[in-house]
């Protein structure tokens, strides 16, 4: 059986290798992705319009940010919803049944106060020194996503990881007493709600859904500036959701949903 699986995967690998031989060369002007390029034989395509017009329309030098959070912001909205759904699924599987079970058991037999954990001063000092720069870097990635690689998603992961560092270096209970579940769980939904709220606000002000130019009626800025600031606003929503979901997934996985002991 194992040998058959090996033969099958080698055959599949050869098939895939043969398939990749038909791909266009990297940077080929005749490939469909760069259709519309002056040297290309294909007709005009949307990618050329993005490359030539995006900076003039949004004043965002990082094309990836402009496309993700402006031209294709509907995609990004549902990507954020997917992250939120993942966090909610893990909450429902691990935290909800076990949490209810543990609460019932703790009333009956479990001791109210758990024994204090062993502390390591070197580890704690290292975490203390690392924690603020990591958070600052997360905020930098969020706000500088217009000009350099980065954006809401990466910033959220970095901010969530900084709290995971606290939970590993100190202990889970101490971290959860500073950032309780009643704070970060609502934030997973609030980020998505903020993103959709921006879209609805544009709708109410007479534009299309997530068309930031409609916000000019409230904030007197030029068309380019309001699109640039709109990108920042929705990226903030993404950051809040992703950061809290990353931390929520970690706390539920590491404590089997009980939130009593970390690593």
């Amino acid at each position, binding site marked *: 059986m194992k040998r058959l699986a090996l033969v099958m995967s080698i055959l599949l690998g050869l098939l895939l290798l043969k398939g990749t031989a038909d791909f266009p060369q*990297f940077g080929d002007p005749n490939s469909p992705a760069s259709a519309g390029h002056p040297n290309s034989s294909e007709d005009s395509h949307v990618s050329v319009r993005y490359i030539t017009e995006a900076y003039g329309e949004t004043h965002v030098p*990082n094309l*990836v*940010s402009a496309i993700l959070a402006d031209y294709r912001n509907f995609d990004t909205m549902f990507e954020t919803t997917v992250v939120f759904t993942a966090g909610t699924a893990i909450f429902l599987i691990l935290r909800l049944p076990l949490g209810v079970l543990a609460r019932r058991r703790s009333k009956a037999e479990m001791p109210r106060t758990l024994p204090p954990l062993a502390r390591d001063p070197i580890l704690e000092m290292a975490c203390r020194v690392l924690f603020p720069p990591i958070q600052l870097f997360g905020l930098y990635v969020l706000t500088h996503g217009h000009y350099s*690689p*980065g*954006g809401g*998603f*990466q910033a959220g*992961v*970095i901010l*969530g*990881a900084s709290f*995971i560092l606290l939970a*590993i270096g100190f202990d889970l209970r101490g971290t959860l007493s500073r950032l309780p579940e009643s704070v970060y769980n609502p934030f997973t939904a609030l980020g998505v709600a903020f993103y959709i709220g921006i879209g609805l606000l544009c709708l109410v002000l007479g534009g299309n859904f997530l068309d930031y130019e409609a916000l000019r009626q409230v904030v007197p800025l030029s068309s380019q500036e309001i699109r640039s600031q709109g990108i920042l606003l929705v990226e903030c929503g993404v950051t809040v959701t992703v950061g809290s979901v*990353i931390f929520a*997934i*970690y706390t539920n*996985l*590491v*404590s*089997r949903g009980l939130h009593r002991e970390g*690593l």
Partner: protein
Amino acid sequence: MTWILEAFLLLFIIGVAIAALESKCLLTSSIILGAYSFMMCLIYAALGAVDVAFTEAAVGAGAGTVFFLATILRTDRKTSR
């Protein structure tokens, strides 16, 4: 000359993937998978997709490895084989 770097990285990725599959200790496997993600991140960067590389480094090599570690330390450390 970047093709030398890319070819080296691609060969290394295959080696790392086989090592992650063959390791009996799941803890070792998950750390090796973190290295695998980092190699992928370097390949994305070499191809010019810096944003994708950044996401891969943060999610794949960072958060993903921590999630694997947390799950393995709470379940069973060895494979059943």
